[in-house]
């Protein structure tokens, strides 16, 4: 049972078709599955729906697939900082379902955990809750939100062992973990593939069961949206 593939293209072989619902990890440009997004763009599949917290920026992340018009719909919490997105959204070429960030993360986690729906206070009394079922619990009103099950999950990790056990690094974990669990198939790209036994079993963020296919995507040239620094004190 070999999970490791030589390239993003090989790892996605047989998984892509028009109209897929794809769950993608990442927050802004932090921890996005760059190699897999590139390979999906190059495959030419279209009418895609992406469940992803953000939509990348111009020509970075999902932004690349917006430019090529392969995306039909986004399910996201925040889509700023993206001119091509704005153009397609305003001209109604692109459909957008806004979902509060925590509800989005929980919907992915729920889908992956066999929970078709849950109740939350988030969004009650706002447009987000319009048309959805409401229910009272202990005197408070909650709205029902649905779990998300994607056709495909694409995620970016830091290290994985050859069995597929995976670790993330710092805030690049973000949506990668819940996104990985909610797809029928999960393809992961990591910075390094290490021998089985190299990772501490107590520190695995994503057990191998969730990683169906794996590539090493190194080297990475990670982009930063806003570099903010402080000055080093004088010695």
């Amino acid at each position, binding site marked *: 049972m070999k999970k490791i593939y030589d390239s993003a293209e090989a790892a996605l072989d047989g998984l892509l078709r028009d109209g897929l619902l794809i769950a993608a990890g990442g*927050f*802004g*440009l*932090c*921890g996005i599955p760059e190699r897999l997004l590139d390979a999906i763009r190059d495959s030419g599949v279209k009418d895609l729906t992406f469940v992803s*917290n953000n939509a990348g920026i111009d020509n970075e992340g999902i932004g690349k697939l917006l430019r090529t018009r392969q995306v039909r719909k986004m399910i*996201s*919490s*925040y*889509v*700023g900082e993206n001119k091509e997105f*704005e153009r397609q*959204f*305003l001209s109604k070429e692109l459909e*957008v379902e*806004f979902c*509060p*960030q*925590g*509800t*989005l*993360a*929980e919907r*992915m*986690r729920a889908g992956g955990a066999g929970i078709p729906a849950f109740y*939350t*206070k*988030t*969004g*009650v*009394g*706002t*447009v*987000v809750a319009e048309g959805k079922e409401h229910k009272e619990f202990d005197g408070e009103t909650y709205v029902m939100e649905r779990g998300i099950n994607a056709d495909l999950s694409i995620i970016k990790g*830091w290290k994985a062992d050859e069995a597929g056990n995976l670790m*993330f*690094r*710092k*805030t*690049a*974990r*973000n*949506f*990668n*973990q*819940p996104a990985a669990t909610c797809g029928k198939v999960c393809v992961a790209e990591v910075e390094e593939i290490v021998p089985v036994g190299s990772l501490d079993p107590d520190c695995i*963020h994503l057990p191998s069961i969730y990683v169906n296919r794996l590539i090493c995507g190194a080297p990475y040239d*990670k*982009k*930063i*949206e*806003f*570099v*903010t*620094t*402080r*000055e*080093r004190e004088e010695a």
Partner: protein
Amino acid sequence: MPWDRNQMAARAAQELEDGFYVNLGIGIPTLVANYIPVGKTVTLQSENGMLGIGPFPYPDEVDADLINAGKQTISELASSSYFSSDQSFAMIRGGHIDLTVLGAMEVSQDGDIANWMIPGKMIKGMGGAMDLVAGVKKIIVVMDHVSKSGSPKFIPECSLPLTGKNVVDLIITDLGVFRRKDHDSPFQLVELAPGVTEDEIAEKTTAAYEVAL
């Protein structure tokens, strides 16, 4: 003289208690971190999956994998921990965060807040704001008392789409502070910025409020 951005942030920081876990929004709320009272341990949460936000990094320590919810580079502390977005919002939605400071376009006299979209303008999305106002124990809004065009922002009813209904506990503007003791009570004007009068507040506020200076 009305409070400036830093003074508003400093005023918000007075609400911090020892041991608090706090989420700070983008803009003026971020400045609150500069005014954490000496001797109090306050841990900052970032909803993209971190507890214990450190200061901006030194230029040679910038790390693309280490950003805050505003996508700015930050640094970690010895006490930091990382987690996924679902765990982060389990923390927020579950009422484990003691306090959040947010900006707002409008706040109503019933504590509704609108801070995520203006009909007709490009919608960028609510991000984590709806989760924060629904889940955090205490919600502080920091905003200018009136809009750039001079119209009141603390009003009888929000005209913009809501972020949350009946959620705001404290409003800090450049002119003063409004507080309410619970979500069934009216807001009370409890503080004035130096040189600001009760009359000036009254003139620039359409929301109903009590005066308890």
